[in-house]
């Protein structure tokens, strides 16, 4: 394990969130009731997804400027992990909505925006699997990844804010505004976000390293073929 301290930190932070998130006092709000604690678990999934997709965006640009296939491996694995976290975020959100909004899917602008964003990223993996040539695959998917990230910003950050949403804190819904995430909730929420982002990066780094090992192996095999 190289540079292990941030991995241990991610474990400690997430562990603290589970204990503190369930045991620390929270504001008593109608409709939300005890599910206000979902803030500690559902929202960090989206933060992690955004950070991972941001990393993939960075490595896609890096690939286009360097042409190094290693950067492509970084971009792919960051995107895959980001998709994983987006699925977790969507599922936890729908479970929560079933009991607070009355139905799992209510065409809430934030739900629709993230669903579109997820579809765009699903198309990324399908696009990759459809191209045989490695260089071509890397180049096309890097360009597509940049487009996908550029689409994610309006879909997640801008459009849902222009209309009312059912989400807590939006359009006069009971939320965290009046108590402004009261300071006790912040004590758990911020560590939760940092812990989950680090965990997401850890998982992505593991997948990337496996991809790199495979890449070097293939390169070695090609070289030995060439020498024959």
């Amino acid at each position, binding site marked *: *394990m*190289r540079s292990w301290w941030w*991995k241990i930190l991610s*474990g400690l932070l*997430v*562990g603290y969130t*589970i*204990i503190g998130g*369930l*045991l620390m006092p929270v504001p*008593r*709000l*109608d409709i939300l*009731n*005890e599910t206000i604690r979902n803030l500690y678990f559902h929202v960090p999934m989206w933060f992690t997804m955004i950070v991972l997709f941001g990393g993939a965006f960075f490595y896609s640009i890096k690939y286009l400027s360097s042409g190094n296939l290693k950067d492509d491996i970084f971009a792919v694995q960051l995107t895959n992990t980001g998709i994983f976290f987006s699925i977790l975020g969507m599922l936890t959100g729908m479970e929560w909505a079933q009991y607070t909004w009355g139905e799992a899917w209510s065409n809430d602008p934030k739900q629709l925006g993230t669903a579109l964003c997820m579809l765009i990223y699903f198309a990324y993996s399908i696009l990759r699997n459809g191209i045989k040539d490695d260089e071509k695959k890397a180049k096309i998917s890097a360009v597509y990844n940049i487009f996908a990230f550029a689409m994610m910003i309006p879909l997640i950050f801008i459009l849902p804010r222009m209309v009312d949403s059912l989400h807590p804190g939006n359009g006069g819904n009971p939320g965290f505004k009046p108590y402004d995430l009261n300071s006790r909730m912040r004590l758990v929420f911020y560590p939760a976000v940092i812990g989950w982002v680090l*965990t997401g990066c*850890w*998982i992505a780094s*593991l997948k990337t*390293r*496996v991809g*790199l*090992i495979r890449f070097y192996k293939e390169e070695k095999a090609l070289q030995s073929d060439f020498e024959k």
Partner: protein
Amino acid sequence: MRAKYALVTILVLLITTTIAQAQTEMADTMRSNGKIYVVVAVLATIFAGIFAYLIYLDKKITKAERS
């Protein structure tokens, strides 16, 4: 007379707000009888397992990188 009225209104307000707060349903029984600790223990165990698995994978990949 006025002071009395003011006192009564304040009292009524205080009582209604406390009642309103108590009416917001929370998992108070689970907390009072300590069952919430069972939930916390179960979740903590699951996450401890997942993190232990991540550490195991990390070590295994490090080994594979060296070879």
